[in-house]
């Protein structure tokens, strides 16, 4: 067992779980999506990206790339939330909510790819 693997795997899978937790629910309904959940997901993803820096293997490069995609999409979703929230008093409208959640959904796909690569690399590491 390798501590690096444990910490690394924990952070990456946690990031995926939080993204999923935010996306789950009706796309247009603001009550189903918690802005705190989104913010925490962004934080964990940034930490995961930081942990991936410095790996010189091909797999490491691919993981870093997909992690960066997640960061970009989630941050874009968070910025949209701020913009839409300032427009109305009662939180984002259903149309705006759909935009935010679709972006987070895109991030979810990239997150799943990261986890698949992680699992594949671990299984193929030949030890």
């Amino acid at each position: 067992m390798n501590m690096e693997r444990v910490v690394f795997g924990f952070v990456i899978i946690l990031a995926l779980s939080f993204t999923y937790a935010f996306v789950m629910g009706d796309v247009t309904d603001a009550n189903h999506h918690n802005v705190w959940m989104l913010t925490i997901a962004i934080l964990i993803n940034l930490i995961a990206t930081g942990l991936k820096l410095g790996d010189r293997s091909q797999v490491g490069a691919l993981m870093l790339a997909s992690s960066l995609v997640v960061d970009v999409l989630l941050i874009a979703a968070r910025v949209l939330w701020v913009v839409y929230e300032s427009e109305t008093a009662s939180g984002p409208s259903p149309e705006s909510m759909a935009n935010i959640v679709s972006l987070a959904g895109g991030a979810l796909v990239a997150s799943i790819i990261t986890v698949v690569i992680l699992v594949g690399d671990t299984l193929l590491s030949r030890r």
Partner: protein
Amino acid sequence: MAVTSELDRVSMVVLRYMRGPIFALIIVYAIGIIGMALIPGQDGENMSLFHAFYFFTYTATTTGFGEIPTAYSDEQRLWAILCIYMGVVAWLYAIGSIFRLVQNPHFLLALNEHRFARAVRRIRRPFFVICGFGDTGSLLARGLSDNWLRGVIIDINPERIKALRLRDYNVTMPGMCADPTVPKHLIDAGIRMPNCKALVILTVDEEINQRIAVLTRLLNPKLRILCRSSSQQAIEHLHSLGNVTIINPFEIFAQLLSMAITAPRLHNLNSCLVRSPDARLGEPIQMPTGDWIICGFGRMGQWVYRHFVQNGIKPVIIDPRAEDVEGAARVIASPANTETLKEAGVDHAAGVVAATDSDHDNLGVLMAVKAMKPDAFTIVRQNSHDHQIAFDAANANLVLQSSLTTARRVLKHLISPQVQVFIEYLRAQGEDICGNTVARLKATVGDQSPHLWQVRITPEEAGAAIEYLRAQQTLTLGEMRRDPHDLDGFIDGIPLSIARDGEQIMLPSDDQPVHEGDEILFSGTEYGEIMLKASLNNIYTLEYLVSGVDRPRGYFFQWLEKRFGRAANTAQADPA
């Protein structure tokens, strides 16, 4: 220079054929367009030159869009009738000429040569030129293709080039039907290109082989030449050219036979390494050394005889052309048949060699021997690849198929020259060391036939190893070939030799350090090759193999390890 003249020839043939039709078309177009532009239309206006050209284009090609842009006057219609007949006839003439052109044999030949030269010029990777695509040539091309190497083929027989086009090789092998004794064809085949690694001459005619070799030496003094030859005179002549490797299948076979008598284990190892289908590792052929009979005293018979005499065997020779031969037990100057075999003492013979240049005679001798002395050791010469099935059924102990022997030896020279040096080294070391090597190999590969491969310690083939070596560390063979699943074990590959700075280190031990630029010859399984290549190209795996510890990959964990020491990072339960 030669290449441009090829293109000139193609364009010249095209021009000569198309000159008439092109003139006819231009004149007919000119008359039609000018007439149409001059004749007044319904409203008295003339058609513009552009519209006249448009009209003539769709009319002459029989497309016929109708009267565009406005309805025509009767004068215009009259002219249009003329235009239609003129235009269609001119086009038919032109199209007919094109068809005649593409069926012209000179044009086709010139075009083929041009295409071939262009295909060769575009090769960027190393390639070999093969003259002669008979049995040997096609076996050699197949062997090259299996190793993902390119060949460029010239043969004078169009049927053979057609056969080449039907093969499914892993790489494209350009082929041309041409006389290889013409210098221009050799240059087209790329013998002057820097990435042409060798010329292999395999035509059936000794004299043509010599001529090609001499021409090549003149055209490219540095190119390596491999030439099949079995006549003493030709061999001496070829040697004088310099950098020529002679492949004499009969001599090679006789040497192998000699090896089978004096060093059976080495012979067995060699057969396995060249992937001879019948050979099984660790089960050498037992050649009896009693009385031998050689039927046929041609090129093969003489070579076998020479090596028999060296090993103290006095054979009986049966050949109608044979005269008194020194060292032979007896010479029977008549054709080999049941009677002469009996006269030669087949019932107490240890073995029989059927070495005539007729496959049917050889098979006949084989059948007679099987009937009279079933337990005799039989060696047979197979001349034509087409008789393979008959020879398989005859079930001789050893078969010399000269095309196969030649192709194997050429491949050995081209792909892994280390192997031959290694075999010769083992020969000098004696049977015990050879036996140890076979035992080690057998323990690694089990019942499979061993797979040979070469690893070059270069940035392209072993990126991680180079990175590791350049970071001042030393890497030994033993560390390199550890098994990533189990650090106490090794992958399925045994290093046979290392070529370094023109020298070859034989049977290197596991302590042997690896240097940049080494070429290491391995034998083992195909899986072993994949595993070794993976280790040599992944710096993390390589570091793990050497130290037994998974190094932290990311900057954060590297910092953590530096800051808090090893305990913080790795709770390595057990290094295995």
